[in-house]
C-alpha cells in the first residue's frame, strides 16, 4: 500500500553543528520549510479506498454472476437480489474497512512524522540555546560587531530564532560597548589622577624641604598624606580597569621603604607598627605593585579593627622569598568570610562581576597578586583578629642594601680634583708618590661603598694601615668619606689643629716637594716668615689650627704619628674651635 513518505530531514541540517560554513550576512539565517504531509496522505487514502472498492465490487460482482448463473431458473431472480444485496453489503464493508485501515495508517504515519519533526525542532532549539547564542555572545565579548557575530554564527532553523538572535546580538553588543567605554574612561581618569597625585607628591616634598616652619610643615605633611591616599584610590581603579601601574621605580626599593610607602597610603597609618629588620629590596618593576598590595591589606586591617588597636606588620625572610604578615586585633573572620576573602584574592577570573562596589580592596589585591606572582593567604591572628600572609617570591627580591644616608657621589671622577686642590691648600701629602695612590684609592673605595658598605670599610681600613698617615683620603670615617658635593669631609671631632699639627710634623723637605703651586704658601706659613701669604692661601680653620698650635707649642709627635691627618675641611663647615 502507499505508505506515507517519511519526512525528509530539514534541508539546512538544523541538528548538525558542523554546518558552520560562513555564509552571507543575516540573510543566510532563513528558516527551512518542511513539505506538507497531510495532502499526500489524503490522496493515498482515497486511492487505496477506491482500489479496495473496485476490487471488492469486481470480486462481489463476479461471485454474484456465478451464483446467479449457477442457480436454478426459478430462483434466479431471488438469488440475484440476494447475492446482489450481499455483494453490495460486502463491498461497502470492505471499502469501509479498507478506508479505516488506510486512514489509521496514514494518521499514525503523520503522528510519527510530527514527533520526528518535534524532536528535530527541539534539538535545533537546544542547539540554538547552547551553541549558537553562546557563540554569538562570545564573539561579541571578544570585540566583534553585531553583524560580524551574526555572520559567523551557525545558521538557525526558524524565523523566530533568527529574530531572537539578531536582537540579542544588538543588545549584547551595546552592553559590551558601554562596558568598554566605561572601562577606558575609568582607566583614563585614573591615569590622570595618578599623574596628578605623583606630581603633587613631588611638589609637596619639595615644599616640605623649603618651608622650615613647623606649622607649615604640619600642614604640608597632612596634605601629603591626603594626596597619597588619593593616589592609592586612583591606583586601585587603574589596577581594576587594567590600566598600567602608576609609578615605576627605577631602582630596587628596600623593605623598610616598601612598608613605609605602603602604610603612608592609608588613613590609619599611625596605627601601623612595623617590625622589620630585613635588608632585602624589591625589584623596581614590582615595588609599586607590592606597595599597593600591602597598602590595601593594611587598610583592610586598619579599617576592620578597633580605632585604638594597632596593626602589626612583620617581615620574615624564608627560603622561598619574604613573608610579610599583617596582623590586626579586630574581628575574627569566620570560616566563610576567610574562604570568601581567600577566593577574592586568588580567583582567577579577571572580570569585575564579583565587585561589590564599595569593597575594592581585595579585588585589587587579587589582581596585583596575580600580576606579580605573590601569594596571599588569610588566617586567624594571634592578636585576636585576622592575619594576612603575603609571600613575595625570590625572583622579585634583590639583596641591595639601603643606600647610605650620606650618599656617595655617583660619579667618582669629579671628586679627585677638588680633593686634590683642597688637600694641597691645607694638608699636602707628604710625598708626591703617595698622592696618586690616595687619589686613586679614594674613588675606588668610594665607588665600592655604594655597592657594599661592609667591604669598603675593610678596604679603607687596609688602606689606612698600608699608607699610614700618608693617605688623607683614607683617614675619613668609614660611614662617609665625601660629602654630596663631592668634596672630602673633615672627620667629625678631629680638630683642624690636629691637621695642622700633622702638617707641622711632616718634614719641610717633603712638603717642598709637593705641588709647586701651593708650596710657597705652606712653607711660608709654617716658617712664620710670611703669615700674610699663608693666610691668603689657606682657609681660616687651618689658620686657626696654626694659631692653636702656636699657643700650645708644637704638636706632640705621638699624636701626629698615630692619628693620620684628617681629611681637609669643607669651606662650609667651620671648625668648632671657632665657637668654643
Amino acid at each position, binding site marked *: 500500500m502507499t505508505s506515507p513518505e517519511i519526512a525528509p530531514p530539514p534541508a539546512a541540517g538544523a541538528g548538525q553543528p558542523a554546518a558552520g560554513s560562513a555564509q552571507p550576512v543575516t540573510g543566510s539565517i532563513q528558516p527551512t520549510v518542511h513539505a506538507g504531509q497531510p495532502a499526500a496522505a489524503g490522496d493515498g487514502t482515497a486511492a487505496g479506498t477506491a482500489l479496495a472498492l473496485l476490487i471488492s465490487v469486481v470480486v462481489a460482482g463476479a461471485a454474484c454472476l456465478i451464483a446467479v448463473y449457477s442457480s436454478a431458473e426459478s430462483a434466479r431472480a431471488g438469488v440475484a437480489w440476494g447475492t446482489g444485496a450481499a455483494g453490495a453489503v460486502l463491498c461497502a464493508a470492505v471499502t469501509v474497512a479498507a478506508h479505516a485501515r488506510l486512514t489509521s495508517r496514514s494518521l499514525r504515519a503523520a503522528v510519527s512524522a510530527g514527533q520526528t519533526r518535534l524532536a528535530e525542532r527541539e534539538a535545533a532549539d537546544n542547539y540554538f540555546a547552547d551553541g549558537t547564542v553562546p557563540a554569538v555572545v562570545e564573539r561579541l565579548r571578544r570585540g566583534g560587531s553585531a553583524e560580524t557575530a551574526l555572520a559567523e554564527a551557525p545558521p538557525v532553523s526558524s524565523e523566530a530564532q533568527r529574530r531572537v538572535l539578531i536582537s540579542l546580538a544588538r543588545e549584547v553588543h551595546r552592553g559590551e560597548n558601554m562596558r568598554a567605554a566605561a572601562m577606558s574612561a575609568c582607566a583614563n581618569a585614573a591615569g590622570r589622577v595618578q599623574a596628578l597625585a605623583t606630581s603633587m607628591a613631588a611638589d609637596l616634598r619639595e615644599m616640605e624641604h623649603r*618651608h622650615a616652619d613647623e606649622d607649615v610643615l604640619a600642614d604640608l605633611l597632612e596634605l601629603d598624606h591626603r594626596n597619597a591616599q588619593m593616589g592609592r584610590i586612583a591606583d586601585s581603579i587603574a589596577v581594576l580597569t587594567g590600566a598600567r601601574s602608576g609609578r615605576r621605580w627605577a631602582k630596587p626599593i628596600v623593605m623598610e621603604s616598601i612598608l613605609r610607602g605602603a602604610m603612608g597610603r592609608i588613613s590609619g597609618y599611625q596605627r601601623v607598627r612595623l617590625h622589620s629588620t630585613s635588608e632585602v629590596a624589591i625589584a623596581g618593576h614590582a615595588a609599586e605593585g607590592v606597595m599597593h598590595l600591602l597598602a590595601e591589606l593594611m587598610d583592610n586591617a586598619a579599617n576592620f579593627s578597633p580605632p585604638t588597636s594597632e596593626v602589626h606588620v612583620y617581615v620574615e625572610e624564608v627560603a622561598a622569598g619574604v613573608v610579610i604578615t599583617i596582623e590586626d586585633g579586630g574581628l575574627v573572620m569566620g570560616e566563610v568570610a576567610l574562604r570568601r576573602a581567600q577566593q577574592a584574592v586568588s580567583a582567577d577570573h579577571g572580570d569585575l562581576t564579583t565587585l561589590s562596589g564599595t569593597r575594592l580592596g581585595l579585588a585589587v589585591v587579587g589582581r596585583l597578586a596575580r600580576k606579580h606572582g605573590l601569594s596571599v593567604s588569610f588566617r586567624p591572628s594571634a592578636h585576636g583578629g585576622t592575619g594576612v600572609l603575603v609571600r613575595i617570591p625570590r625572583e622579585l627580591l634583590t639583596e641591595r642594601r639601603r643606600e647610605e644616608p650620606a650618599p656617595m657621589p655617583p660619579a667618582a671622577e669629579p671628586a679627585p680634583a677638588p680633593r686634590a686642590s683642597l688637600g694641597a691648600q691645607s694638608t699636602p701629602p707628604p710625598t708626591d708618590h703617595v698622592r696618586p695612590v690616595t687619589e686613586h684609592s679614594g674613588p675606588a673605595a668610594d665607588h665600592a661603598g655604594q655597592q657594599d658598605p661592609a667591604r669598603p670599610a675593610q678596604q679603607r681600613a687596609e688602606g689606612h694601615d698600608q699608607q699610614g698617615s700618608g693617605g688623607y683620603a683614607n683617614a675619613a670615617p668609614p660611614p662617609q668619606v665625601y660629602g654630596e658635593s663631592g668634596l672630602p669631609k673633615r672627620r667629625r671631632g678631629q680638630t683642624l689643629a690636629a691637621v695642622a699639627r700633622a702638617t707641622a710634623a711632616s718634614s719641610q723637605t717633603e712638603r717642598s716637594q709637593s705641588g709647586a703651586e701651593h708650596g710657597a704658601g705652606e712653607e711660608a706659613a709654617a716658617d712664620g716668615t710670611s703669615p700674610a701669604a699663608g693666610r691668603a692661601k689657606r682657609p681660616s680653620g687651618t689658620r686657626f689650627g696654626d694659631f692653636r698650635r702656636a699657643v700650645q707649642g708644637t704638636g706632640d709627635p705621638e699624636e701626629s704619628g698615630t692619628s693620620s691627618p684628617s681629611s681637609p675641611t669643607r669651606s662650609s663647615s667651620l671648625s668648632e674651635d671657632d665657637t668654643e
Partner: protein
Amino acid sequence: MTRPGRDEDPDRLYTVTGGRSRSTTGADTFDLVTLVVSESAPVRGMQSEHAAILRICRFPTAVVELASDLGLPVSVVRILLGDLLAQGKITARHPRRARTADALPDPDILKQVLVGLRNI
C-alpha cells in the same frame, strides 16, 4: 638634595616621623648648629634614619649637616633627633652656650689669642 630625579623615594616624610610634625623636645633643643653626638651604636631593627643619624653622629655633627646628609628637612631631622634624645642615644651640644653666657670672651682666651698671634 639627594634626589636626582623626580621623587625617587617612596617614603613620605610623615611616615618617617610617624605623623608628627613637631619636635617633642622643643624648638630650642636643636637649632641649626647644635652639635649632635651619638652615644650608642645603631641596633638592628631601628628606623633607618635613626640608624643613619647614629652612624653620622659618631663624631659631633651639626643639625644642619645631618639634614643635608640625610636629605631631609631640618624640622624632620629635629623630630628624629628628639626621639633619639628621649631614648638617650644621642647628646646635644650647644656651641654658642659659652658665648651667650657673657657677651665678651674670657680674658684668658683673649690673652692666649694675643700670645698665639705673636707666635705666628
